[in-house]
Structures are given as structure tokens and as C-alpha cells.
């Protein structure tokens, strides 16, 4: 505006925000009575026309903007015949338009005093011509188009229903893929004019690209070095080693482990049961041995889908190889849970009390002699066999927890890759104009001292933390279930089964 010639300013007033918008100016008074201000180049020009207008439009706001050749700017606002003080802020609108974050809060209703929020709210009222740089615009159109096509091809509405859902929840790979497809589906259906959607799209796109690149690198390494055979042999050796270790562990438990005195018959019985199970497992390994190499080779083809898919497949392989540990854990946990539950019930009977389900409290009750007798007998038996079962339970739970830790480590890596907003961070590092979100006011010195100060508004980069929080993936459902440590310990003590804490919250 500052570079135009002098003329009239036309616009409209938005009452509740106390905002006056100036649409255009023109030298010719084509709009006649609707002008709300004038723009003058020099101080001396002052026409009588203005004074008349002032008298006529008493109820309106009249803006008088004046720019000197020296670069001084002065501005008067007259509201209902009284002059208001105003500060002039100079800015470049293109910066606003380019930034992804400033017109973020289109839909927020909060009236915060934060200058950034106020600005973005004001901007949302303005229909700025979204003239982004041409390159990004084209890129966006292409990406959206690509998504539309792929989305039509890979619609996974089938996988969300019925028996496939159960199968999918068992395997981490399928789960991951389905959530990815879901994400792309959401991306396809989102509102593409929102800058948040656009940013999300850009992040998702870049992430997929990086994923696939890394996956194909791994694939290439696999093929080139013939790693699949070697890896298969290693895995089989490791599996046999684990089976032997378990065998020695169970035989150790059958004796007097760590000096603890276990019930001899019971220990032997349990030990033989688990030993037979290990024997079965070794048979399974024998069957698996020739197949594993080709399975690994075809799995590395998953690199097309990305490194995350390969990691998920690795997780699935780990699950399969430690299936016997999982089985042992489940047996021991179920027995232990039953034992603890029965023991607590019989202890209540021992004291002559009963648990009132309705009132959720302990009541005293008169038992018959036969009930008391039988209850005490069973209580004694359960009490004296508790150390044996508890020891087996503790040992197998520890093994299971180790396996679960490995699971969780891989899952965390996958999750990090999924969530990380790569596009935003890269653009931020390269100081692109799109990643700005904070405002900076600087004072421009005026040549003549009797004028009010003029501020210049510049948009600068936002801090990285805010960037990360703002560029969250809008297409992904937030995983709400938090696993508490206290509930984990409670489950361990009472013998309830622990599931890997990433798969429980599957919708």
C-alpha cells in the first residue's frame, strides 16, 4: 500500500472485533459515499472534501493515512468526531499467507490475549488470497491426487471388520499396516484447505518416502550379501540354545533351587510336564529349519512398504520364536492365579468371614462344621504348595518380561519413526518461510519526532517444541490407554495375564 499513489481508502468495519478492513483504494472516487479514509502522500495535501466528509459521516470511522517522502508514516483515526490514537504496524502479508501456523486456529473459540493467537484469529476473518509459492502448491496438488488414487486401490474397510480383525490384532505387522492405511484414508478425506491438513499430508508423505528408502536399502543389503541364509542359520542356532537353556532351568527347578524347599512330588510333576513341552518345541524347530531362510528372504521384500514394516515383521518373528516361553508363562500364571484366588477365599473362611459381593465388604458368617472342615483341609494343602507354584510362576514371568522388553524396544523405534514430523523439522532446520509462527515487533524510527512510533511486524521461526506439538499427525488416532506401573505390579502379584502393552488398546 505504501507505494501507491494517494487516493481514498475503502473498506468495511467489523464491529465485534474492533477491526477495520481496507479492501482497496482507488484514485477515482467511484464508490462515492462509501469511502472510509484517505491515503495521502504528502502532508500538505488536504482537500476540503475530506472535511465535508468528516461532518457527514459522524458515526463512522474515518482513517487518514499519510506517508511522507522521507518515509515517515502517520495515521489518524477519527471515530465519532473524536480522534483516536493509533499505532502503525508495517508488515508484509505474504509472510502471513505462507506460514502454516499462523492461520492455525480457525476454529478455536478462545479469546486469548496472546498476540499470535489474536493475529491468527483476525486473519481467519480475512479471506486472504492464499497465494502460496507456486512450487509447494503444485506439490500439494500432486500429493493429494496420488493419495486419492492409492486410497481407492487400497481401501481397507474390509480389514476392520469381522474375523480379519482378530487375525490382524495378533500380528504386529498386519496391525501396523492397517493403521497406516487408516491414516491414509483419513488423509484422503480431510479438508485440504486447512493448513493443518496440508502440513500433515506433507509429513506423512515424506515419512513414507524415507521409510521406503530405508527399507529398500535393507533389502538391497540383504540380497547383495545373501544375508538371509546366514541369518536363518543364526536364528535356528539361537532357538536351540534357548531350548537347551530352558531344559537346564527346569531341571534345576525340579531339584532344590537356591536352597528353597519345594514340595518334591509336585515339583517333579510340574518339571516333567514342562520338559515334555520343550521336547515338543524342539520338534517344531526341526520343522521350521528349512523354511526359515526363504521366509526371511520374502520378508525382506517388505522393504517396499518401509523400514517400519520390516521392524514389525521382526517383532512378529520374535513372537513366533518365543512362543514356548509365552505358553509356559500362561500355564504358570493361570495356576498361580487360581491358587492365589482360592487361598484368599479359604483364608476368609478360616477367619469365619465371607465376602459380600453386593456390599463389597467382609461379613462374618456361621459356617457348618463340614464346610469348615473341608475348607481348612484345602486351605492347608494350598498353603503348603504355594511356594512351589509361586517359584515356577516367578521364573517364567521373568522370562516373559524379558521377551516383552525386547518387543517394546522394537515397537518404540517403529512408533518414533511413525510419529516424527520429518517434513516440519527439515523445513525448520533449513529456515523455510513456511515454518514461521512467532511475531516480532521492531520499532522503526521516524524522522520527525512529533509523530507516533511505527512498528514493523516480522514473522520469525517458532521454537522447536511448539513446532513439534503443532505438527502432530492429525490423521492418527491418539492412543489413549496409558499403562500404569501400579496396575502392572498388581497384575503380577495376583497372577493376571500381562499382555504386551502396545496391543491392548487396539480399537
Amino acid at each position, binding site marked *: 500500500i505504501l507505494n501507491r499513489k494517494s487516493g481514498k481508502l475503502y473498506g468495511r468495519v467489523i464491529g465485534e472485533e474492533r477491526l477495520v478492513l481496507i479492501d482497496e483504494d482507488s484514485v477515482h472516487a467511484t464508490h462515492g459515499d462509501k469511502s472510509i479514509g484517505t491515503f495521502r502522500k504528502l502532508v500538505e495535501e488536504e482537500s476540503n472534501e475530506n472535511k465535508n466528509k468528516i461532518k457527514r459521516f459522524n458515526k463512522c470511522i474515518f482513517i487518514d493515512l499519510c506517508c511522507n517522502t522521507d518515509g515517515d508514516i502517520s495515521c489518524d483515526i477519527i471515530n465519532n468526531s473524536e480522534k483516536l490514537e493509533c499505532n502503525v504496524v508495517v508488515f508484509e502479508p505474504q509472510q502471513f499467507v505462507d506460514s502454516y501456523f499462523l492461520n492455525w486456529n480457525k476454529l478455536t473459540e478462545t479469546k486469548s490475549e496472546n498476540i499470535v493467537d489474536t493475529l491468527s484469529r483476525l486473519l481467519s476473518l480475512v479471506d486472504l488470497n492464499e497465494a502460496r509459492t507456486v512450487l509447494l502448491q503444485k506439490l500439494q496438488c500432486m500429493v493429494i491426487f496420488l493419495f486419492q488414487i492409492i486410497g481407492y486401490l487400497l481401501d481397507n474397510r474390509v480389514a476392520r471388520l469381522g474375523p480379519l480383525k482378530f487375525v490382524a490384532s495378533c500380528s504386529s505387522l498386519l496391525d501396523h499396516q492397517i493403521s497406516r492405511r487408516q491414516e491414509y484414508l483419513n488423509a484422503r478425506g480431510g479438508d485440504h484447505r486447512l493448513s493443518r491438513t496440508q502440513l500433515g499430508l506433507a509429513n506423512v508423505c515424506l515419512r513414507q518416502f524415507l521409510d521406503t528408502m530405508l527399507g529398500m536399502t535393507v533389502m538391497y543389503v540383504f540380497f547383495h550379501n545373501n544375508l538371509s541364509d546366514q541369518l536363518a542359520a543364526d536364528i535356528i542356532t539361537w532357538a536351540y540354545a534357548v531350548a537347551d537353556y530352558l531344559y537346564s532351568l527346569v531341571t534345576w527347578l525340579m531339584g532344590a533351587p537356591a536352597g528353597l524347599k519345594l*514340595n518334591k512330588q509336585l515339583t517333579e510333576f510340574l518339571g516333567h510336564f514342562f520338559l515334555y513341552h520343550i521336547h515338543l518345541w524342539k520338534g517344531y524347530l526341526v520343522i521350521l529349519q528349512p523354511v526359515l531362510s526363504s521366509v526371511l528372504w520374502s520378508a525382506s521384500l517388505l522393504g517396499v512398504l518401509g523400514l517400519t514394516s520390516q521392524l514389525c515383521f521382526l517383532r512378529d518373528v520374535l513372537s513366533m520364536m518365543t512362543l514356548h516361553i509365552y505358553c509356559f508363562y500362561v500355564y504358570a500364571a493361570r495356576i498361580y492365579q487360581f491358587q492365589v484366588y482360592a487361598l484368599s477365599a479359604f483364608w476368609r473362611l478360616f*477367619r*469365619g468371614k465371607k465376602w459380600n459381593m453386593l456390599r463389597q465388604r467382609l461379613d462374618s458368617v456361621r459356617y457348618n*462344621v*463340614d464346610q469348615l472342615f473341608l475348607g481348612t483341609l484345602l*486351605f492347608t494343602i494350598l498353603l503348603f504348595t504355594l511356594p512351589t507354584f509361586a517359584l515356577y510362576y516367578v521364573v517364567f514371568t521373568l522370562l516373559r518380561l524379558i521377551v516383552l522388553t525386547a518387543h517394546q524396544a522394537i515397537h518404540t523405534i517403529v512408533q518414533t519413526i511413525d510419529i516424527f514430523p520429518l517434513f516440519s523439522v527439515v523445513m525448520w532446520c533449513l529456515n523455510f518461510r513456511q515454518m514461521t509462527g512467532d511475531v516480532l515487533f521492531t520499532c522503526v524510527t521516524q524522522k520527525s519526532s512529533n509523530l507516533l512510533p511505527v512498528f514493523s511486524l516480522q514473522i520469525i521461526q517458532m521454537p522447536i517444541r511448539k513446532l513439534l506439538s503443532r505438527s502432530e499427525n492429525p490423521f492418527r488416532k491418539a492412543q489413549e490407554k496409558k499403562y500404569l506401573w501400579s496396575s502392572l505390579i498388581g497384575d503380577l502379584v495376583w497372577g493376571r495375564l500381562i499382555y504386551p502393552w502396545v496391543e491392548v488398546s487396539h480399537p
Partner: protein
Amino acid sequence: MAARREIKWRKILYEHQNVPDNYVDESFLEEMKKNLYIRNYEYWSVVKASGEITQQISSMCLFIVSFIYMDDKRLLPDTLVLITIAVSVVGYIVSKLVDKFTTVDSSDDKNQRTVLEDLKTFVMFTGFSYCLSPVLASLTETISTDTIYAMTTVMLLANLAFHNYGVQAALVSEAFSLNAAIFASVCLASRLPTSWHAFATVLFSLQIFGLWPRLRHKIKETFPAVNVALTVVLGSLTLLALFTVSMVPAVVFILGHVFITFICPAWLISLQPLKNNIHGPWDEAVIKND
């Protein structure tokens, strides 16, 4: 001032009486009553009533003696089982006779258990004990004997402490005392060589801790005079049994008995004059169902 003093002070607060709120005149503590509900004990009746405790102690000692005999292989489990069953049958007949004696009319026939029900219970007891006795026999193999003995002692003491001696006290819990006794018997049974021993022990303990107190209770209610005779007979039987085991427990038993039977009542009665219970209008209201 004198005129005001003539007005008698009343125990109210809704009128000004020119005295502080916590003032009471000479009628202070008029309504207090001391030792309203004292029972006056008579020496010999208390002595007779103490037979309850001594009977329970005697039964317990009999049980322990039987275990010691079986451990020493002096007593065969078959003998013990036969004795148990015989005494059970005799006791059952006695209880039925006592029932017939007390209830002249057949108004609460429904509450009486039939012979068939009792037989069913008996079969169930025996069956379960027999089935679980192999498990019981090897239950505590790896636990040291001293631990077992300590646990048994604690459990039997608990049985004595929580037993229902006919007094309404907060400590009484019949279920707990019975359970403690059975727990103790299982602990002891696991020390014995074969499962047949374990079965005999468990059966005997059930009879002596579960059924015998009930019978005693029933007899005491109908024939109070028999109680004393019962105490004496039981005590002497136990004394004889302990004597055959060794001298020390017999002496301790006699001393304990004398203490509980003769000295404790005297002590109780001598402490009665020292009672100082205060009752008054500040007591909690007791709702009477008149």
C-alpha cells in the same frame, strides 16, 4: 443477691441464670450410680463353671498324646480309627437320647437333623479325609520338624483362645478355633509315615475338636450336674495318658488344672470389690424391645 440465690438453679440453658454455662450446684453427680450390674460370684459355682476350660484343655492334651503314641509306633492307626468310630457312634446315640429327653413336644421337628443327614455328613468327612490323606502325608516333607511343632503349638493355643466357652466376648470365633485345630492336626499328620496314619489323625482331630465340644455343650445344658463328673473323668484320663508319656507334662498338667480350677476363681472373687463402674444419664441409650 440473696433474692437471686433463692431461685433454685435448674439444669437448663435456655434461660439466663446468671451463672456460667458449666455451673452445677450441689446436686452434682446425683444421678450417678455405681456398679449397677455387678454379678455376685459364688466360689463353688465358679469352680464348677471353670470346668469348661479344663475340659477343652484335656481334650487337646488327649489329641497330642495320641499323636505322640502314633509317632512312637505304640499306637496303630487302625486302632485309632476303630476307637474314633466307636466313640463317634456312642456319642451320637447319647446326643440323640439327650435330644429326646429335652424336647417333649415335636414342635421343632423340622430343625432336627435326620439320621440320614448325619450319616451323609459322616460319609463325606470320611471320604474326603481318605482321598486327601495321601496328599496330606507328603505335604510338609521338606519343612523342618521344629517349624511344624512351632506352628502346631501356635494353632492349638489359638484354638484354646478363640473357643466358645459360653461367654459373650468379642474374641470368640468358633470357626477360627475349629479351623486352627484342624490346621494343627494337618501339620501333625504330615509328620507321620503313611497316609493311613494321616487319615487316622485327621479323623480323630475332627471328632475331638469338632463334634466333642458340641456334645459337651448339649449335655451341660440338660444335665448340669453331670458337668463336674465329666470334668473329673476327663482330667484323670488325660493325666493318666500324660503320665505314661513322661513325668513332666503330667506335673505341669496337674499344676495347671489346680491353678485354673481353684486359684483363678478365688482371684476373680477377690478382685470383685475393686470394681468401680460408673453409670449415669450420660450412658449411651440401649434400645429395649419390650
